[in-house]
């Protein structure tokens, strides 16, 4: 059964959600491990399309982890400082100090788990037309299908491979229709990469489907029963929905990792997604640490919008969970009804066989047939209950968790900014003390040191503030997009679901109408 296809994303009329990296390309050609990190820079999202033409380097200065070639970057960075986009407030001090130190990027960017893949610099060959198209809020013309699950290998090393088919007319892809084989851990790897790049700057990255050790083990072991086929189908549908959501996100669509995932025939195996790998354990530890931190961060919320929204999402989460639980019960009971109806159909048939009055015997056999058909009907309806309604709810419960995560990142960002301010204050105090205490001998060196540190921290404070504003801005936009999408999604699914219910009832009418004359024919 086809999973719910994502409706085309709303043209939200905001053409800004893509990285204008074609111009910045030269900046990064020499670097090795950069491009994944570039999107971490706050600016791209805020860059209006128009600015692209004016800004040859719409690219952000190198807030980027650069393992090599730092010097080149800095040279250009100083240049760039003057090419601020109109949106950026002049927060830099008048002194021509380097805008960045190597230290900043790592603290800014969330710790990354996996080694960065050495991908070629991105060549976003998005044509001007496409940019304008998006500016007009046109539909993203890309459809993803996940199909043909097949088991590869044997025993505990076996895995399911899924075919991922892309149909698109976007010119950033080399073909208009292509497909690749991917396994589940590949999807998780993709999500992991996207999350590490975009989550902490405020983008709502759709979560990947959940792992299931039990389910997968059954499949590996080779049980050809209905529960394992159901499991595979459930997973296939979930993977499809996941990809659909991801490509409909205008920023994520531009990501090179996503393109590689969709296009390249070979993908390096994402081992770090395994639950029990070193990376996996590190992830768990970090999650725990995050949870503790969240509890201790007391943020002075200056913007009521955020508080309101957080509360809204909290409520929504609770309500959706309740609804989801009740829908799950419905699915379960409908399956039971189907099974019981089938059992009854069999016994009615047996009874009809025993019955020695011919007309009644025939009527009972007809009843048995009707009940059998009805059992099928119930099964299909349970299917619809699940794939349309239940899975939609569970998807959104996980999506809201991602939204909450993004809000948390904002808090962390604020915390960083706050910490930088405190440190700066301390440094300034130290400097002031030094000024007062008049000891000429060693003082000059110390003074210089402290001066340097102060400058360093001033920059960090400015960066912190910029980042915080950036993430706040991004989140606002993202939440708007998310909510619009959510409304659309729910409405579409609700209508579809109701239509499935209507279908079932109409079939019931057909069956009973066919049976009625048989009952009347009993003489």
């Amino acid at each position: 059964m086809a999973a719910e296809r994502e409706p085309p994303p709303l043209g939200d009329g905001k053409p800004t959600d893509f990285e204008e990296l074609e111009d910045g390309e030269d900046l990064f050609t020499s670097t090795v491990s950069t491009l994944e990190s570039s999107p971490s820079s706050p600016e791209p999202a805020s860059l209006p399309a128009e600015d692209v033409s004016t800004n040859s380097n719409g690219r952000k200065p190198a807030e980027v982890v650069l393992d090599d070639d730092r010097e080149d970057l800095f040279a250009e960075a100083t240049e760039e400082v003057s090419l601020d986009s109109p949106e950026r407030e002049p927060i830099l001090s008048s002194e021509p100090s380097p805008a960045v130190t190597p230290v900043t990027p790592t603290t800014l960017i969330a710790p990354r788990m996996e080694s960065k893949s050495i991908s070629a610099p991105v060549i976003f060959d998005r044509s001007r037309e496409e940019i304008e198209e998006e500016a007009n809020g046109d539909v993203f013309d890309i459809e993803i299908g996940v199909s043909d699950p097949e088991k590869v290998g044997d025993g505990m090393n076996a895995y399911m491979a899924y075919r991922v088919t892309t149909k698109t007319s976007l010119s950033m892809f080399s073909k208009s229709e292509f497909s690749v084989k991917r396994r589940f851990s590949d999807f998780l790897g993709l999500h992991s990469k996207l999350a590490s790049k975009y989550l902490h700057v405020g983008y709502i990255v759709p979560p990947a489907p959940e792992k299931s050790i039990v389910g997968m083990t059954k499949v590996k072991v080779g049980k050809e029963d209905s529960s394992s086929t159901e499991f595979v189908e459930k997973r296939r549908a979930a993977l499809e929905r996941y990809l659909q959501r991801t490509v409909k996100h205008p920023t994520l669509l531009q990501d090179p990792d996503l393109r590689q995932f969709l296009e390249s025939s070979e993908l390096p195996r994402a081992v770090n997604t395994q639950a029990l790998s070193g990376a996996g354990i590190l992830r768990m530890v970090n999650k725990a640490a995050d949870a503790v931190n969240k509890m201790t961060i007391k943020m002075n919320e200056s913007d009521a919008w955020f508080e309101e929204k957080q509360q809204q999402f909290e409520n929504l989460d609770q309500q959706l969970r309740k609804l989801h639980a009740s829908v799950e019960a419905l699915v379960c009971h409908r399956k039971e009804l189907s099974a019981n109806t089938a059992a009854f159909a069999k016994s009615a048939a047996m009874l009809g066989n025993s019955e020695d009055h011919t007309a009644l015997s025939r009527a009972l056999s007809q009843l048995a047939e009707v009940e059998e058909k009805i059992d099928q009907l119930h099964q299909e309806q349970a299917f619809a209950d699940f794939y349309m309604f239940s899975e939609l709810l569970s998807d959104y419960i996980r999506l809201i968790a991602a939204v909450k995560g993004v809000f948390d990142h904002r808090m962390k960002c604020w915390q960083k900014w706050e910490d930088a301010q405190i440190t700066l204050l301390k440094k300034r105090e130290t400097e002031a003390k030094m000024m007062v205490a008049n000891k000429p001998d060693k003082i000059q060196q110390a003074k210089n040191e402290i001066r340097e540190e102060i400058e360093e921290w001033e920059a960090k404070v400015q960066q912190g503030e910029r980042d915080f504003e950036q993430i706040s801005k991004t989140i606002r936009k993202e939440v708007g997009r998310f909510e619009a999408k959510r409304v659309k999604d729910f409405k579409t699914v609700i209508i579809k679901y109701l239509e499935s219910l209507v279908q079932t009832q109409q079939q019931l009418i057909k069956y009973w109408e066919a049976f009625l004359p048989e009952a009347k024919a009993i003489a």
Partner: protein
Amino acid sequence: MEGRQEAGKENKPSSTSVDPQGDSSLQVEISDAVSERDKVKFTVQTKSCLPHFAQTEFSVVRQHEEFIWLHDAYVENEEYAGLIIPPAPPRPDFEASREKLQKLGEGDSSITREEFAKMKQELEAEYLAIFKKTVAMHEVFLQRLAAHPTLRRDHNFFVFLEYGQDLSVRGKNRKELLGGFLRNIVKSADEALITSMSGLKEVDDFFEHERTFLLEYHTRIRDACLRADRVMQSHKCLADDYIPMSAALSSLGTQEVNQLKTSFLKLAELFERLRKLEGRVASDEDLKLSDMLRYYMRDSQAAKDLLYRRLRALADYENANKALDKARTRNREVRTAESNQQLCCRRFERLSDSAKQELMDFKSRRVSSFRKNLIELAELELKHAKASTLLLRNTLVALKGEP
């Protein structure tokens, strides 16, 4: 003959309408019933112009045990050995329903007040339905007796209907229950023994056929009844599931600030209505299908019992024949043996004749009852499906019309 046929046809099980009596000289109905703690008190009202009774209209209060006493009295009466004794009504059982109500009472606080009210309503309706059913079962039992030309003339029946006081029939104590249980075992052992008796040949094709038929039929109808019950339970579960769904949608709707508000609220309303419809489907299936199957399961058991009695009589006849032969060869007590043999013969023939008639009545009763109930079942299912479709369509129109 005609009177009997009529009476046969009109005895339908557990329909909500009162069965019209073939012969208006004796009309019985349960006009009222009261449930007290663990007892149900039925008010049995009789209308009769028969000279036997002191008044033309009178009523008494009876409890379930007294019905059982009456049934057993019939069964133990040799005169009625050749008749199908209407099956006794099942004991009123509110245990399950009461337990559920109690659980709800102590239940968890996570459900809203609205949900609680709805669930309570559902359980109360269930309780009421069980109550109505037990009344119907007891009523049908009496009405079949009243309609049967032979059974209605029983003295115990008159006492049951007329005697104002308590019949002082206590429920069976453990010893009696055990006794009844053992008797059943003895009966089936006996039956097995008889059938394996050499020389005991079924002379009548009709009875041979009936026996094979009834054995199989009884097992299968019991199966069908159990499974129909489960289907009905599932429908009820489904209906109950709509309660928390509707509540969750309702609270979602009130919280939303965007266009989803109306969608959720409409859905909440829809599921509330669907719940009621689903509940009706469940109760109709219960009445028209499950109950009917259950009744004929019991009735077919009663028919089987009749066949057993006849078989017993045949065995007795055979034994009497053998005894006579022996007596003649020995030339001792020939007279007694002869009269005994004649007695057995006459009894056997009497039983066979009336059994044949009874079994044919059983068949026609069964056929007409199935017909009626299956037609009504199909019609009700159609009605509910059409109502659901209309409801769903209206909601769809409303939702699609939203911006």
